């Protein structure tokens, strides 16, 4: 995973900066943070326990959406020419955008440990019903996704996002 982190470092940075953003949004103090480093994990944000379960769910799951959406937006203009006219028809900028977008989307999933904490809290009896309804199934999906990351599911997910979103956009526009 260390090599993947190096090759896709923008994704690590975006994931950790997104977590920092959600901490800030929830007024949660950051105890320590590494936004990128060689090794595993490539980055982390260590924060104080948030006041509510919903804030914890947001801090842990928020980066998943940021990485997914940002990765798709950045990769799409690079992927469209390659999808339509062939892999050898792209400009340097197209390939850079594809790499950047895929790197970001690949790092959408949190670590297994973080995903497990969110799943347990989002589904706990004492958690408010609304948080359970909104965060419960999502936290399960993300937990399973993060487990799949051990088998490269994160890479498959990232590549699928950068290929499928442009096709979906073209289909909707057409």
């Amino acid at each position, binding site marked *: 995973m260390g090599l993947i982190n190096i090759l896709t470092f923008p994704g690590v940075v975006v994931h950790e900066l997104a977590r920092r953003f959600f901490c800030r949004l929830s007024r949660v103090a*950051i105890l320590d943070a590494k936004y*990128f480093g060689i090794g595993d994990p490539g980055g982390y944000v260590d924060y*104080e326990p948030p006041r509510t379960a919903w804030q914890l769910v947001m801090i842990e799951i928020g980066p998943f959406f940021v990485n997914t959406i940002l990765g798709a937006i950045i990769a799409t203009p690079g992927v*469209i020419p390659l999808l*339509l006219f062939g892999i050898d028809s792209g400009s340097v900028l197209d390939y850079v*955008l594809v790499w950047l977008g895929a790197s970001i989307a690949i790092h959408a999933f949190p670590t297994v440990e973080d995903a497990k904490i969110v799943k347990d809290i989002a589904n706990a009896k004492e958690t408010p019903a609304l948080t359970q309804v909104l965060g419960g199934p999502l936290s399960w999906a993300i937990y399973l996704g993060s487990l799949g990351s051990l088998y490269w599911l994160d890479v498959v997910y990232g590549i699928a996002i950068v290929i499928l979103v442009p096709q979906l956009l073209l289909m909707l526009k057409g």
Partner: protein
Amino acid sequence: MPETPTCQKCGSKAIEPRYEIPLCRRCRQAMIGHRIPDGILAIALLILVGLALALVRLPRLVEGGAAYQRGLAYEKAGEDEAAAKSYAAALRFFPDDTTVLAHLAIAYHRAGDDDDAQPILYRLVGRTMSGDLKQALGLCQKEINDRRASAQPAQDNAH
């Protein structure tokens, strides 16, 4: 008597309620704004540049790509005039793309508009493209030449 909690950082007694870690508002605010190293800020800036470039290009490419795909669908359905219109629209977004130009030339020719097809065929001479497209263009050019050759004696006779 229980000890009153004080801020872990500065010792202030005005700690914020409902947090596990006792911190005053000012110290928590300082920790929320955890410093981002300059190298990370530089990477974030480059990502923002990538995002800006993507956002500028995105509408144009989606518009052009959808027009090209409509052209392919019309071409498949044998609606050559509609295909030519869609390819011409796609060409506005991909001004010198070999594949779009080739499909446009073929659609013009099949729609009976050789006058518009011929300049594009000249423009495509020497360009690299797929074997299928090259073959289709070759056939196009041959049919245009044949049509013109057969039209020539008729014009001569008319004179």
